[in-house]
């Protein structure tokens, strides 16, 4: 069967744009709702529930250590 490419792709356009908008409109609704719920039930105290960073972050520590050492030697050099 011969396919009319342009008709076919126009259908894709309708299908695709509807789906994209459906998704995003739903997202907007959910985000608005969610934000209301969160601001009502967890008013700005949620930061507290996040524990401090695990100490295991060695790489950074090494940098900090290097900095500290360097500052130390700098202090002495003065």
């Amino acid at each position, binding site marked *: 069967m011969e*396919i009319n*490419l*342009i008709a*076919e*792709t*126009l259908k*894709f*356009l309708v*299908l*695709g*744009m509807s*789906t*994209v*908008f*459906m*998704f*995003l*409109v*739903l*997202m*907007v609704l*959910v*985000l*608005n709702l*969610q*934000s209301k719920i*969160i*601001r009502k039930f*967890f008013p*700005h105290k*949620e*930061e507290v529930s*996040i*524990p401090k*960073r*695990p100490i*295991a*972050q060695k790489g950074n520590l090494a940098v900090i250590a290097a900095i500290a050492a360097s500052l130390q030697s700098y202090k002495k050099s003065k």
Partner: protein
Amino acid sequence: MKKLIISWMFFLGIACMTTSLMASDIAKEDLNKDYKSKSVSELFSSLYESTGLNAMINPQEGLVSHGLKVSTFNQGAGRVVMIAICFTLFYLAIAKGFEPLLLIPIAFGGFLANIPVADIAGPEGFLGILFNIGISTGLFPLLIFMGVGAMTDFGPLIANPKTALLGGAAQLGIFGTIVGAAVLTEYTGFINFSLKDACAIGIIGGADGPTSIFVATRLAPELLGAIAVAAYSYMALVPIIQPPIMRALTSKEERLIKMEQLREVSKLEKIIFPLTIMVLCIIILPDATPLIGALAFGNFARESGVIKRLSETMENALINIVTIFLGLSVGSKLAAEKFLVPETLGILFLGLIAFAMGTAGGVIMAQIMNKFSKQKINPLIGSAGVSAVPMAARVSNKEGMKEDPTNMLLMHAMGPNVAGVIGSAVAAGVLLSIFK
């Protein structure tokens, strides 16, 4: 020191001797069975035959490279043309700052893929091996998306969710381009895109490199090289392509609109956001979940705040390594016999259309929304909906400041900008689901 080495050798020698009795009794003659002695001049002439010079000036009829028959033109001048194109990409990336992180590896991959004789992009060459590991399987683009997720702050979108609609409208570029590809096929004699090809090309309008590559790998692998080059080139051209369109479609008053400051977004909202879009995506369009899922995982790792080790690795070592491999292996599809076809011209042309349409879609959507809402949106941020994070948002900001230097649109434009990433992943899901 020397004693040590000598004694080590001695020790080894004795060990070897004890085994030498049972050593290989292969006759020496048999060792070189497959080798035929050549005279010095024969050696030199066979070396000459294996030079690139000879391969290019004396192309062979019916040579097969990378699994494709290569025309004599493409064995010689075609390769030179492709290498020249790769060098142009180097120039643009280095001197003009065009998306160098991807264009340099891609162009270098293309350079390597066009080397005669070596067949580096073939199934046994290292580009071919990388391609099979990471591109055919879809792994590399998803890992890039993970890194993008780990780098992206969705705060501006959460603060003002309705700007997401701008990111939706900008996807018009994708679907409009698909229609355009169909038109080209119907009305030109020499460009032939299948429906799958058309859809893969359309994704260029999504302004999202990894999404383009992911979709092209599934729908039109033979166009991958041209699509990737077009996608990244036009993303790099955002500051040149968008402004004239933005100015043509908006009035001075619109460009002067000041938007109210974004509210602060709590940590909890940011943590929940990637899960929310995942749940929506599962309900509506599971075919987009690999892409959205990778993005959401990276972002969740970032916002959770407790696995910094991992999220930092995703946005540094991991994404860098994958970028190198992805770029080189995508570049391997720039071999002359794949790139120097009329379809490439069509793709480059359609890519430009796609960007223009996406930009216009976002801007016009903002104007429509302003008709129905009291909280006015500056339509300049509509253009950021094409994604190309964060360049498109910067362009919006710059254009806004041209009219009023005190009007900072950057954070407002980040909303549609990141929504554009989600929007094109959804569009990709739709296209993949059509052809399943």
